[in-house]
């Protein structure tokens, strides 16, 4: 991983919710800064204490520099700089619309459209797409040596690899665009009613779905003109090419449980399928394999401790974690057996307390990069 991070420009961390993506992204970003890269972590929703520890303000969607004082705790001074940025989908989407609208009036009308309001916040894939959009924007500025992306925590994050194509479909060749545009372009909105009534398919659909939804959609695409759509389309392709570049590394993050591991595998397949550079699996919060407690140890505990009950509790507690460790190990073995044997699998142990400050983040470096500063 050490070599990878030295040459990488973009590191994207993928995985299902609750596996610690945000924390790991922060740890990787911190490492980047420590080895001298100007680094930014593009994150979604860090735990409050971690955000506080990094001096991040919650409601701020600008690039924020992590103050030097945060590194005092570890007694290190990063050779590079560390920035963080929180992602707000709506905010990014609005910017995109402003950029590609032919006039401020048009942008304003799009913002007010009810369908846009839905599209920009709730449509499946929007979050993922906007994360990519922001990533691309940051990459283009050439301000940073390394961008670490913490992808949105949802199963839909799997869509983000297809996001450029999806958006292309949405804006490019879809039904409304090709069929309805000439009618709307005439500028007479009354046409759409006539149109709906004329086609039996559309008529049935409008009956079932209610006409209002279709009108909102139609309005949205009426507002969004050719240059807007083209802008989107070329942007999508550019993003895809950035993601496929050899300077990008995808990491699949999981906890040692079956469901998130299957998710991580899904990511792995998806990344391979798209010919994108895969950097390995990070298995977070692994309960280590404990040596089996022997009968002599057991007797020794009983002989040493006066309280029979306490001795039993200690042994029982140990055996529980022995079992847990074994189950983690088995899952990781399974993962190894179904992926490429040369696959990198980084294991991060389960820590006693939550990782919520810079010192704790540094602890992770030992397992990711084989070094601690």
């Amino acid at each position, binding site marked *: 991983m050490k070599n990878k991070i030295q040459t990488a420009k973009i590191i994207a961390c993928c995985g299902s919710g609750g596996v610690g993506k945000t924390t790991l992204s922060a740890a990787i970003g911190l490492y980047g800064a420590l080895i001298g890269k100007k680094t930014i972590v593009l994150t979604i929703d860090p*735990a409050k204490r971690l955000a506080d520890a990094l001096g991040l303000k919650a409601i701020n969607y600008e690039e924020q520099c992590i103050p030097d004082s945060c590194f005092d705790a570890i007694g290190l001074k990063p050779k590079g700089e560390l920035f963080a940025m929180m992602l707000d989908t709506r905010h990014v989407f609005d910017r995109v619309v402003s950029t590609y609208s032919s006039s401020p009036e048009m942008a304003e009308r799009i913002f007010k459209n009810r369908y846009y309001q839905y599209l920009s916040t709730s449509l499946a894939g929007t979050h993922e797409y906007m994360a990519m959009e922001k990533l691309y924007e940051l990459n283009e500025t050439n301000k940073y040596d390394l961008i670490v992306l913490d992808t949105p925590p949802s199963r839909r994050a799997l869509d983000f690899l297809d996001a450029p194509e999806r958006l292309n479909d949405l804006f490019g060749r879809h039904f409304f665009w090709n069929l309805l545009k000439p009618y709307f372009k005439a500028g007479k909105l009354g046409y759409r009613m006539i149109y709906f009534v004329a086609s039996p398919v559309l008529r049935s659909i409008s009956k079932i*779905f209610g006409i209002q939804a279709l009108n909102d959609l139609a309005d949205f695409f009426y507002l969004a003109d050719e240059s807007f759509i083209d802008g989107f389309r070329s942007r999508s392709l550019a993003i895809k090419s950035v993601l496929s570049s050899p300077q990008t590394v995808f990491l699949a993050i999981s906890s040692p449980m079956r*469901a998130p591991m299957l998710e991580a595998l899904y990511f792995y397949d998806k990344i391979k399928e798209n010919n994108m550079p895969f950097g390995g699996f990070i298995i977070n919060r692994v309960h280590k394999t*404990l040596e089996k407690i022997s009968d002599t140890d057991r007797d020794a505990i009983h002989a040493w*401790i006066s309280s029979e009950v306490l001795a039993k509790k200690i042994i029982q507690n140990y055996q529980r974690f022995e079992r847990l460790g074994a189950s983690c190990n088995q899952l990781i073995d399974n993962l190894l057996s179904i992926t490429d044997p040369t696959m990198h699998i980084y294991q991060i142990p389960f820590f006693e307390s939550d990782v919520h400050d810079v010192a704790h983040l540094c602890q992770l470096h030992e397992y990711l990069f084989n070094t601690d500063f």
Partner: protein
Amino acid sequence: MSIFDHRLLFIVGKGGVGKTTVSVALGLAAKRLNKTVLLIEVGDADAIGQIFDRKSLPEHPIQIQPDLWGVRINAKSVLQEYIKLHVNIPFIAARIVKSKIFEYIIAATPGLKEVMTLGQIWRWEQNKTFDNVPHFDLIIVDAPATGHGVSLLMLPQTLINMLIVGPIVEQTRVVHNLLIDPDKTCTTLVTIPEELPVNEALEFKTIASQQLKMPVQATFINSVYPNDFSESDEEKINSNIQEICEKKHLKKLKPMFELAKSTIFRRKLQQTYIDMMYAQQQKHETIVELPFVFSHRLSVKEIEPLVQMMLKNESS
């Protein structure tokens, strides 16, 4: 009112807290209370199937165990059925289902997938056997992780606003009435005693009562370590560890004692988060703590302690 006296349990929570585990455990517990249960999985995951060591659930209910049924909802196929039902002319229905605009509307209409999902749940709720008793006594819905759980439940308002008229709106109203009826539907929250999940759980509780009008009636705090060690145990263990460090022949025992110590530490940390949940307990909210399962390969056997805890809570 007992959680098992509802018709519908909506299981919500952040990803990775064990919603599926809790859903299955609730199903197994209800079954032992002589109920016929339907477990519903929403979305593409096949986590329920995994616990029962079988492949993913089909799109029509199947019996997993006596009195325990399972199904996976696929919004798109529900919508196709729905169209066929509502468009009288089969040829037009077929054209709609095949058309690109149909694909597009599914992807783009706010809450359409969700309303189809909820509508299907409602139909199962209405299902009657030949002698006119409900087919399922209890329906348990393993909802998507909180963010999406909210959008699933939020949809009645959104959709009614967007569509205004039409058969889908009518259906949505009926579903909405079922969801906001606290005697029928129990919003069931799952969390684990850690920082982010607890914060998110507390946020959800506010949204549930204020925006969704579906206040959380049951909260399960999952993965709670057993509280084996007393204060005096802790003191003894600490002094034992000191002794181990001093005496060479005891060195071999160090890992056992260190582990006991860290378990005590972790348990205390968990307690602070558990306390946070109790501090904000609402009037009609039951809080149940569920034990940590010491295996990451979950099976029906492994989650039995959770079932026991649910039943115990029921009888107390």
